[in-house]
């Protein structure tokens, strides 16, 4: 478990430096204080509320953004013509950094869930679209011809033939989108939106509570790591059969 040595060492040194008061600052805190602050935030419910808000935002935005991304991506992947026609529009819209839309979302929705969810949705849309399109393009022609033979309309073709084939890739796309969703949700909250974990960080900073701030920071990091690890585990479990092992 050599990997644990470094973090433990860092925590130890940090604690010692803090307790001894070597660095005096309003801006610093140390592990024991942070742990206390974390306990405090748990007991007064602030961590739970903020986490709930951030996660709802992330999930909601991801559902919308990835949903649209999967739908469009499958369409553009299966129908070469649609893919070609959409190319320029996608290339023009995709490079816009999602954070650039924060002021617009603020203008349109005011503070609250609408603002965050819309920015998260935009951020999740494009990577999902691209991965889905790429996966759909690789669906073998024969399968599509089968669906023609069965005279399926596009909706049934999508659901019965295309989607099952690309499900492993979809999962990768969703795993990526989940990470992006969390990051963007927190970013929107830090920048402008007064709710969720990002806002909790800002509040702690503005009220000069570095212990609370670091507690929330560590929690955000842990949340992100748990999310990724969890989804990875799930992916491995679900898709072992596909590997043909």
């Amino acid at each position, binding site marked *: 478990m050599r990997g644990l040595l*470094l973090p433990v060492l860092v925590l130890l040194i940090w604690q010692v430096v803090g307790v001894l008061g070597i660095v005096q600052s309003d801006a610093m805190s140390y592990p024991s204080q942070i742990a206390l602050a974390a306990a405090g935030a748990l007991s007064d419910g602030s961590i739970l509320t903020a986490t709930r808000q951030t996660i709802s935002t992330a999930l909601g935005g991801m559902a919308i953004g990835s949903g649209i991304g999967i739908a469009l991506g499958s369409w553009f992947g299966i129908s070469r013509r649609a893919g070609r026609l959409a190319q320029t529009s996608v290339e023009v819209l995709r490079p816009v950094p999602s954070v650039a839309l924060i002021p*617009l979302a603020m203008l349109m929705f005011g503070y609250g869930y609408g603002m965050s969810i819309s920015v998260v949705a935009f951020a999740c849309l494009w990577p999902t679209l691209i991965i889905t399109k790429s996966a759909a393009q690789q669906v073998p022609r024969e399968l599509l011809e089968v669906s023609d033979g069965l005279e399926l309309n596009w909706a049934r073709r999508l659901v019965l033939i295309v989607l099952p084939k690309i499900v492993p890739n979809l999962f990768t796309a969703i795993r990526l989108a989940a990470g992006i969703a969390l990051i963007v949700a927190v970013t929107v909250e830090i920048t402008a939106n007064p709710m969720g974990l990002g806002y909790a960080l800002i509040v702690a900073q503005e009220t000069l509570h570095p212990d609370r701030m670091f507690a929330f920071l560590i929690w955000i990091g842990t949340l992100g790591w748990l999310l990724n690890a969890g989804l990875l585990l799930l992916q491995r479990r679900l898709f072992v059969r596909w590997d043909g092992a």
Partner: protein
Amino acid sequence: MTHRMRLPDIGSLVILAGLLGIWEITALSGWISPVFLPPIEKAVAALFDLASDGTLLRAIVGTTFRMLIGFAFATLVGCGLGILIGLSPRARAYIEPSLEFLRPLPASAIIPVAILMLGLTKTMIIFVIAFGSLWPTLLATIQGIKSVEPRLFEMARTMELSQRDVIRTIVLPSALPDIFAGLRLGLTVSLILAVVTEMMSAEPGLGSIILQAARSFNSSDLFAGVMVLGALGFVINALMEQGQRRLMRWKSD
């Protein structure tokens, strides 16, 4: 996934024009209030206005400058450290687990910490940008160095290559595609953090133009700013894409 940079197909340009048409009609008809959605000509006019009195140029320069400085720091430190760590399996055993934990952390979460420590200053902004773009660069460099073909090291031993020669002729060229992918990600993060820190600190830049415009319900300026940011993102992406394509020529996977 790489896109081919050939000339856009006429049909797709038509579709884009169609979307713009929908925008124009929606804005003019007032179906979406002009407070949110300006007609295209107003947004373009705002763009020219901002350009004519130099505001736009100053903003672009400001944002780009901060982005690049922070990114330069991150590249130097990230690549340098990455090479050192990547070459030593022992160092990797101790350090990599911690890095993996930090990987999903939102870079923007460091902003309140930085503000607390450094105040709403230019230093804070550069620090945030550098810190945020450090991780993708560092992680990608380590990855690249890690995945050098081991047989090449044996070949180097039989040729009695010096350590410097091994790094120069084998490790660096092999790792370059991975390092570049990391740099590309780092640059994207730099842009995002530059914009966010501008919005929070009112340093002159594209981010603050957009935020100001939103606060004063000036949708034309807002859209003008978003368009410029989109263009900036596009240019950066296109340049990196070209660079990456050239580097990847020899890599078959």
